[in-house]
């Protein structure tokens, strides 16, 4: 869009003090796009490997259960829980609630903690089942 450079631009990004609500908003985008690419492709690879045959499935399992594979899967699961919980936060905000400064800040700080706990609980369940 052509902009008249002699007119001042509203300082909408630079004047605000950084807060947890800004971090969680950006994290919602980062995690969403991470899930939309790496997360979804992982699931499609898994399904295609299972549909193709035992060799293809063995190759998938070999990659998925390598140290890097576990790291990616743990990362994707944290991305999912983080995106899910900040998504629920968005539902609340869409209803017009939760905008009070204190409430907004509290939930922005609590959500990453909750998603980390959910990730730990999930992988503890998986690894406990294996041993």
């Amino acid at each position, binding site marked *: 869009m052509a902009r008249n450079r002699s007119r001042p631009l509203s300082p909408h990004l630079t004047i605000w003090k950084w807060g947890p609500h800004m971090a969680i908003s950006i994290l919602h985008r980062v995690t969403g796009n991470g899930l939309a690419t790496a997360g979804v492709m992982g*699931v499609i690879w898994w*399904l295609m490997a299972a549909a193709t045959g035992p060799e293809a499935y063995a190759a998938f399992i070999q990659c998925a259960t390598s140290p890097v594979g576990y790291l990616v899967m743990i990362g994707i*699961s944290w991305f*999912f829980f983080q995106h899910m919980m900040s*998504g629920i936060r*968005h539902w609340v905000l869409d209803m017009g609630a939760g905008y009070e400064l204190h409430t907004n800040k509290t939930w922005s700080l609590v959500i990453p903690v909750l998603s980390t706990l959910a990730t730990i609980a*999930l992988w503890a369940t998986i690894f406990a089942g294996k041993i």
Partner: protein
Amino acid sequence: MGNGTGIGRVRGLGSARHGAGHWLTHRYTSVSNLLLVLWLIFSLATMPGLDYESVRSWIANPLVAVPLMLMLVSVFWHLRLGMQVMLEDYVHDKGLNFFAILILNFYTIAGAAAGIFAIAKIAFEGAAS
């Protein structure tokens, strides 16, 4: 911005009048994503094994294959809407933006088709083979 004028509309500036539908569908698919992806994670975490035979016999069950297909439709629809907003916000060049959204649409349809085909193949072949 050309919101109100006739020439603005001709040039494709301003609202396309599709915003509310896009926004609402994003919310609808977020509800179905929440239910279906949590179901998938819970199922995978509680399955006795994730070896080839167990996974195939699990997917071959119609009560698994259908929700799994629905999950892919919901997830791919949701990610298409979300990534479109991201591209519209960050890819400012009009031609590049058009191209990026074209690729996004190809990615969405191809990814969903691949996943649904894989599920259907397993479901129709049965657990064996």
